[in-house]
C-alpha cells in the first residue's frame, strides 16, 4: 500500500532461526489447507534467530517507528474468530524508531520460553505458536509471521495400570477385554487380549477404532466433535466360547496427537479405544474406553555403534510385542460349538442392543 501511495521505500522481512539446518521439521497443515514445513520446538527451549529487513530500493531511506518481534501462543476457536486468546505473548524490541538506509539484521532471543501446550489443529479449534515481526510505520505496519510447531513431551511411569473389563449383553455376548495400559505414547503399541466368555451372535468381524473427541468451550457453548482416526481389524469370523484373540495395534502407523485436557480453559482432546463387534446383519456392538495418549521424547540412541545393540536385535525384533496379563485369569477352555446348543441360533432380536 505504501508503494501504491508512492511513499517510496519498502522492505522485505525474513525471520531466520538459529540451527535451521539441524532442527527437526514437522509437516503440518496450515490455515490454507496446504502442508507446510515448520520447525519443531519443545517447552522451555529458547527461540533465537535473526530478523532480516531487506530494503527493496537500495540507498533509499526507510523510515520506521520501531521494529519488534513477538513470540505468541494462541488459541483460536473457529466459531468465534474474533476471540483469540494469547496465552503467551513475549515481545522484544529490535530497533528504536529511526531510518534504515541499507539492509539490516536484528538478532533476537527468547530465552527458555515456556510453551505449555502442544500445537494442535483441530476441527473447531486451533492452538498455534508463531513469531511475528512488526515494523511500525506511520500508515501501515509491515509484519511477518512464521509458525512454529511445539511438541509437548510428557512421561509416565511404565507400571501403568492395564484396562480390564468384562462386558456383555445378557445371554447373548460376554467378553472380557484387556489393554495392557491406559496411557500410551504416540509410538507405543497397544497389546491386549479379548476373551470370549459367551457368544450367541453371529459375529462377522471385530475391530478396534481410535476415536478422537474434541471438546471446545464450556457450559452451554460446548462443542463436541468426534472423529474416527483409525480402524484396525483384529478378528475375522466368529469365535466360539473360550477363544482369546490377541490385540496388537501400533500407534505409530497413525497420525495422532497427545490427549489434551482443558487447554487454556478452552478445549480438550480425548482419545477412546472403541472395541466394535459387527454381526452378520451389520449390527455393531461396541465398548469405548478412554486412553491417554502422550508424547514421549524421541529415543536417545542407545550405545550407538556398539555390537551389543545388534545382539539384542537377535532376540527381540520390533513388532513382536506380547501381551502378558498382570494377573493370570482362569478362562474356560475352548469348547466345541456342540456343547453350546444355542450358539449360532439366537434370534436377531436378542442382540439388537449395543453394549
Amino acid at each position, binding site marked *: 500500500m505504501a508503494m501504491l501511495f508512492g511513499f517510496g521505500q519498502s522492505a522485505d522481512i525474513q525471520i531466520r532461526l538459529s540451527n535451521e539446518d539441524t532442527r527437526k521439521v514437522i509437516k503440518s497443515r496450515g490455515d490454507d489447507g496446504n502442508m507446510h514445513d515448520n520447525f519443531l520446538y519443545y517447552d522451555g527451549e529458547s527461540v533465537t534467530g535473526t530478523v532480516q529487513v531487506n530494503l527493496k530500493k537500495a540507498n533509499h531511506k526507510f523510515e520506521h517507528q520501531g521494529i519488534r518481534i513477538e513470540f505468541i501462543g494462541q488459541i483460536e476457536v473457529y466459531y468465534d474468530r474474533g476471540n483469540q486468546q494469547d496465552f503467551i505473548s513475549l515481545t522484544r524490541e529490535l530497533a528504536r524508531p529511526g531510518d534504515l538506509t541499507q539492509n539490516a539484521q536484528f538478532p533476537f532471543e527468547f530465552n527458555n520460553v515456556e510453551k505449555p501446550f502442544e500445537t494442535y489443529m483441530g476441527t473447531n479449534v486451533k492452538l498455534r505458536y508463531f513469531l511475528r515481526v512488526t515494523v511500525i510505520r506511520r500508515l501501515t505496519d509491515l509484519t511477518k509471521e512464521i509458525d512454529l510447531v511445539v511438541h509437548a513431551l510428557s512421561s509416565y511411569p511404565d507400571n501403568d495400570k492395564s484396562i480390564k473389563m468384562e462386558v456383555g449383553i445378557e445371554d447373548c455376548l460376554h467378553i472380557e477385554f484387556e489393554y495392557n495400559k491406559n496411557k500410551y505414547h504416540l509410538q507405543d503399541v497397544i497389546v491386549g487380549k479379548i476373551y470370549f466368555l459367551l457368544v450367541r451372535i453371529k459375529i462377522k*468381524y471385530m475391530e478396534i477404532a481410535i476415536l478422537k473427541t474434541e471438546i471446545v468451550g464450556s457450559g452451554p457453548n460446548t462443542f463436541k466433535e468426534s472423529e474416527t482416526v483409525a480402524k484396525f481389524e483384529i478378528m*475375522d469370523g466368529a469365535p466360539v466360547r473360550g477363544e482369546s484373540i490377541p490385540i496388537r495395534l501400533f500407534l505409530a502407523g497413525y497420525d495422532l496427537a497427545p490427549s489434551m485436557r482443558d487447554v487454556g480453559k478452552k478445549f480438550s482432546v480425548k482419545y477412546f479405544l472403541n472395541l466394535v463387534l459387527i454381526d452378520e446383519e451389520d449390527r455393531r456392538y461396541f465398548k469405548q474406553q478412554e486412553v491417554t495418549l502422550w508424547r514421549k521424547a524421541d529415543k536417545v540412541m542407545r550405545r550407538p555403534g556398539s555390537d551389543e545393540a545388534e545382539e539384542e*536385535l537377535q532376540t527381540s525384533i520390533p513388532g513382536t510385542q506380547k501381551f502378558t496379563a498382570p494377573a493370570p485369569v482362569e478362562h474356560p477352555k475352548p469348547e*466345541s460349538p456342540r456343547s453350546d446348543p444355542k450358539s449360532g441360533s439366537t434370534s436377531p432380536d436378542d442382540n439388537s442392543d449395543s453394549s
Partner: protein
Amino acid sequence: MYDNPGNTTDQEKFLDQSIRVVKTESFEMKRCLDKGKTMDALKHALQMLNEMRTAELSPKFYYRLYMDTMHELQCLEVSLIQEYAQEPAKLGNLYECVQYASAIIPRLYLLVTIGGVFIKCGLGSRKEILKDLVEMCRGVQHPLRGLFLRNYLMQCTRSVLPDLPETEDMLLAHNNTLPKGAPALKPRDGTVEDTIDFVLINFAEMNKLWVRMQHQGPSKEKEKREKDRLELRILVGTNLVRLAQLEALTEEMYVRDVLPSILEQIVSCRDTISQEYLMECVIQVFADDFHLATLNEFLNACGQLQQEVNIKILLIALVDRLALYTNSSIEGQPAPTKMQLFEIFSEQATSLIKNRPDMPMDDIVALHVSLVSLAVKCYPDRLDYADMTFLGLRQVIEEKGITDIEAFGKVGRELTKLLNIPIDEYKNVLRLSELPEYIKVMSYFDYRGQCNIASYMVQNMLEEETILRHQEDVDAAFSLISSLLRDQEKQPDNSHETEEFADEQNLVARLLHLIRADDVDSQFLLLNSARKVLGEGGRHRLRYTLPPIIFELYRLVLQFADMKDEDEKWDAKIRKMFVCAMGTIGALVSTAELAELPMKLYLNVSSFCKQHSMKNFQGAITADRVPFEDNHTVVYEFVSKALSILEDDVVDSRDRVRCLQLTVGTLLKTTHLPEENWQPLANQAVLAAAKMFKKPDQVRSLVTVAALYWHGKTLETNGEKLRNGKKVVDILRKSAKIAKECLEPLVQQQLFIQLLSAYTYYYEDNCPEINVDHIEELISRTQDNAVQLDVSAEADSLEKQLGEAIRRLQLAKLDVAASQVSSARAEPDLPQPPSENEGL
C-alpha cells in the same frame, strides 16, 4: 461359512475377478521389488492379499485363489531374501511395519511372509517369531480363511522349523560348501521342542476351525458342508505329517508331549469327521515303535471318541499295521512287548464294545477279525489268545441274542472272514479243535454260513493234504464240519437240491481219502468209524460220502492182500473188510435208494476180488496153503447182490441192459469161482437177459450173455475157457427166435445182422456146434427181409452191414476149413468143451 456360495458359474466369475486383481497387483509388486522399493512392493502385496478376504468362494474355489496368491507371496519372499540376505539388519522394523495394515487377513499373510524372511535371513529369534506368528493367527476365526492362513503358516515355516540341534560341525560343513560371498549360516535359536509346541498349537487351532465349519450355516446344507470339510481335511492333517517328519522327535517326546496333546485335541473336539480322520492320520504318519509305546493311551482315546466314529476302521488299521510290524521287524524282541500288544488290544477292544452299545454287530465282528488276525499271525503258538478272542466274540453275540447269522449279510461276511483266518494261517484245520470257542462261534451262523466255513476247511485240508491219521483227527475234523455231515436243525428243506450241496458233499468225499492211518488195522477202524458217522447223513449225503469209503476199503484190501504172511488173522480180517464194504453198499441201496451205483460197486468189488485172488492164487501156489473159500463166497455174494439189484431195483430198460452187460463183463473176469457158484450166476444172467422188457433188448442181451458160456472161467477149468458151444448155440437160437418175433422190419433186420455177426464170431472161434447151414438159413432170411425194406438211409446202411457180414462169413468159412485141415493133420483131438453143462 461363505456367505453366498452361489453356483459354479458364479464362483468361476468371482474367482476370475479375484485372480485378475491378484495378477495385476503382483505384477506391480514385482516391479517395485525390481526397483528396490520394498515398502511399495508390500503395499501392492497387501492389495493383492485383500482378495483373500473374500467370502464369496466355496472351499474349492478359495483353494485355487489361495494357490495363486501363495505363489506370488513366494516370489515376494524369494526376492526379499535375495535382497536382504547379505545385510539382514536392513530389514529393520519391517516386521512391525506390515502390522500397520488395518485388515487382518492381508496383514497376517504378509506378517507370516516377512516372518519367514526374517528367519531365513537369520534376523531375530527364530523361536520368538514362530511363536508370535502362530499366536497372531488366532485373530482369524473364520474357518475357511483361518484354515488356509494357518496352512500358509505351515508352508512358509516348513523348512525353518528347529529340528535336530545345529551343531557347529554342521554349520561349518554347510558354510564351507557355500560359494564366496554367500552369507554364512549362523547358529539359530530354538529347539525341536519349540517346533513341537508350534505345530501342536497350529494343529489344535486348525482342528477347532475345521470342526467349527460343521456348525455354521443352515442345517439343510449339512451334507454339503461335510463334503467341503472332507476336502479340507488334508490341511489339518499336514500338521501331523510335519510332526512325524521331525528327525529329532524321539519316542520319549512323542509319549510325553506329542501324542497326549494330539489326543486331547481330538477327543475334546467331539466331532465325528475330525476324530475319524485324525486318528487314522496318527496311525498312518507316526512310526510303528511310537505306536507300540503308546498303545494304551491311543486305545484309551479311541474309547472316548464319539459314538458315531467308526472305531472299527481305526483299530483295524492300527492292529494291521502293528501286526505287520511285529511280525516282520521284532523277531528278536523280548516276548513281553509282543505279549502285551495282544493283551492290550484285546482288553481295549472288549471295553470299547462294552462302552458302545450301539456299535453295529458287523463292526464288532470286524474288530475281532483284526484281533484274531493279530493273535494268529503274531502269536502262532498262543492258541489261547485266539481262543480268548473267539470267546469274547461269543459272549457279545450271546448277550445280543443273535442267532442264525446270515452267511452273506454284513455280519456274516465279517464272520466268514474271521473264521477263515485261523484256517488260512494255521494251514492245519485240525488245530482248530484246540480252539474250543471257534466251533461255538461258528454255530451262530445260519446253515449256509456253517456249510461255507466247513467246506472252506475241507478245501484247506485238501490243499494242505492234512492227513487224518488217528481217530482223534477224524473226530476233530468231523465235528468241525458236522454241518456238512448230517442234517441240521436250521437246514432248509430243499437244501440238498442245490449246487452247493453237491459241491460240498463232493468235497467231503474227497476229504475221506485223507483218512490214512499208519497201519491197516487202524485204517480199517478209522474207515469203519467214519462210515458210522457218515451213515447218519441221510440219503442225500450217503450217495456222495459212502462210495469213497468203499473205495478206500477196496484199496485197503488190496494193500492188505500182500500182507497175508504178516497177519495170523488175515483171512478173518479180509473177510471182515469185504463184509464191511458189502454192508456199506447195502446202505447205499437201502438208504440212499440207489441202484446202478451200488451195483457197479458190487461188481467192482468182484473185479477187485479177481485181481486180489489172482495175486493170492499165485501166492497160494508158492505157499500151497490157503484155499479160496472166503474169496469165492465173497465174489458170489457180491455178484449175486448185483444181480438182485438188477432184478429188483433197476427200472429203466436201457439201464438194465447196461447193468447186465456190466455183470457179464465182471463174471467174465472172475476166474476162481467154483463151478457150483458160477453156474447159478450165469443162469441168473441168462434169465435176466431173457426177461428184458423189450424184444430187441432180449435179443441183444442174450447174445451178450452167450459169451459167458464160451469165455467164462471157473475154478475147475483152471484158467481155461469154458467153451460150452452147445449152450452158446442154445442161447443164440433162442435169441434168433425172439428176433423173428420182432415186428418192426428195420429193427428186426438189425437184430438179424447182429445175430449173424455173433454166429460168425463163434464159428470163426471154432465152435463146433455152429451149423453153417443154420447160418446160411439166417442169411437168406435176412436177405429176403432186406428186399422188403422200404428205401431209406437206414435200409441202405443195413444193406451194407449185411454185405459185410456175409463177406465176413465167407472169410471165416475159408479160415475154418483151413484150420480144420491143418488141425486134422497135426492135432486130431480138439479140446472138448466141458460136457457137464446143463441146458437152459
